[in-house]
């Protein structure tokens, strides 16, 4: 079982050593990667994704459980260590969801694939809100449905101990639920994000500047409090959106949760409880 990932700093875009020369991420931790566009967030994820050994633009070195990754053979062994979900990724295969998931389950030697496939589909539909079936063709999926399926697949079939997430807030899925499903079980999760809610859901965040790691912030008590406010506000906005989309007029008391929704929430929490 993976215990930690260490990133040893390299150089930033102007060729100076980056301020953070050592960043450790422990099993079970969520790390947010924040900073303006072009500050090097995706490169950091890429460095970790390929277990860089000073060969990339940044010269960073990545250690898995303090060990050096020297040879290509070592890297081959690590091939199923990480799974990635990003806004740029799409399904390109002309195949139905069930055919493809079955293939993936085979490649990953998943025991009891039928059961797992059902779960993948349920989560996909939970995340996207526009239901798909096993017979839906991958190439017909909307952006949101694709991302939902990717998240579900990464969580249940790839099931890698390290998950790299690049800007899924624009992906048209319920990103809080997505993060919920991708975390837990001692996984290390890295989230590149511009979204304050996602940033604060992390245990700490690394701040990128000029291509380098420029600082580390630990999420404070105060921030956790702000997070819970944000989540509440978001739920309220979602509820309003749903009401309006269904053609309803808004009642003055929009704090009220309807029964159906309450039920759904309970089921979801139960699900998370049993799977983590």
């Amino acid at each position, binding site marked *: 079982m993976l215990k930690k990932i260490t990133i040893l700093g390299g150089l930033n875009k102007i060729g100076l050593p980056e301020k953070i020369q050592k960043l450790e991420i422990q099993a079970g931790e969520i790390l947010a990667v924040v900073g303006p566009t072009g500050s090097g967030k995706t490169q950091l994820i890429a460095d970790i994704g390929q277990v860089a050994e000073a*060969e990339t633009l940044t010269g960073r070195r990545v250690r898995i459980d303090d060990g050096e990754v020297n040879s290509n053979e070592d890297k081959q062994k690590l091939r199923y260590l990480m799974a990635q979900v990003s806004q740029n990724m799409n*399904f*390109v*295969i002309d195949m139905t969801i069930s055919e493809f*998931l079955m293939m993936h389950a085979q490649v990953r030697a998943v025991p009891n694939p039928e059961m797992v496939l059902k779960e993948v589909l349920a989560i996909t539909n939970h995340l996207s809100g526009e239901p798909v079936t096993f017979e839906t063709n991958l190439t017909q999926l909307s952006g949101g449905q694709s991302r939902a399926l990717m998240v579900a697949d990464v969580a249940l079939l790839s099931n890698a101990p390290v998950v790299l997430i690049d800007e899924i807030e624009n992906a048209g899925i319920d990103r809080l639920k997505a993060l919920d499903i991708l975390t837990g079980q001692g996984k290390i999760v890295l989230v590149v994000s511009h979204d304050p809610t996602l940033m604060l859901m992390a245990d700490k965040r690394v701040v990128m500047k000029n291509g380098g790691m420029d600082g580390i912030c630990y999420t404070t008590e105060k921030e956790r409090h702000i997070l819970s406010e944000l989540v509440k506000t978001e739920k309220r906005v979602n509820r309003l959106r749903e009401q309006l989309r269904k053609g309803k007029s808004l009642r003055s008391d929009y704090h009220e949760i309807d029964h159906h929704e309450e039920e759904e929430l309970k089921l979801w929490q139960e699900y998370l409880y049993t799977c983590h």
Partner: protein
Amino acid sequence: MQFVIVAGTPSSGKTSVMVHTIRHLQTSGQQVAVCKIDCLQTNDDVTYRRLGIPVAVGLSDYVCPDHFYVANLEEIEQWAGVQKADVLVLETAGLCHRCAPAVYDCLSICVIDNLIGINTPRKVGPMLSSADVVVITKGDIVSQAEREVFRYQVESVNPQARIMEMNGLTGQGAVSLKNTILNYPQFEGITGKRLKNPMPAAICSYCAGETVIGKSFQMGVVKKVEFESVDQC
């Protein structure tokens, strides 16, 4: 000299991958020369020249590109020798799927991309199955699941190859490929080396410029489709 043969499906990223890799080779003090073999036309020479290295182009034109390639290997090697190259990169394009440019003792690289479809590795044939290194590109735009399934398919076609996932746009993975090239044993000349796979026969009248359709115009090695007999209902 290191003799590196690069093949792969069209637009898979051969040039992109090699440009990044050559940059790293240059940083390591290696003199690199590139030869591009294609059928009718190529722009890759312009791209390679930007690296400030000697570049040659061979267009097969009316000759089968596969045969053209083999028939020129000695000359290409001599040319690279004159350029004082430590590493010769030979990018081939336009080869048919039946063909494979791999030569024993040369490092042969097959570049194949995630977009060509999960079942295509099986159709690529000897070009993929006889490569020493398989580079898989364009992983940045497909799902994790497809990458895993695709790689598995490649592995089942060529279990011996070293498989490397690279990004032709950013150059991710190019240093590993550079190291693979530099660590590959050098050899003393291409003359007398053997192709890993024989080329398909091409000695019929159409090879010699015939254009009219019909049995009486066909001479030489001619192979016909074998149709299954269909039961009448």
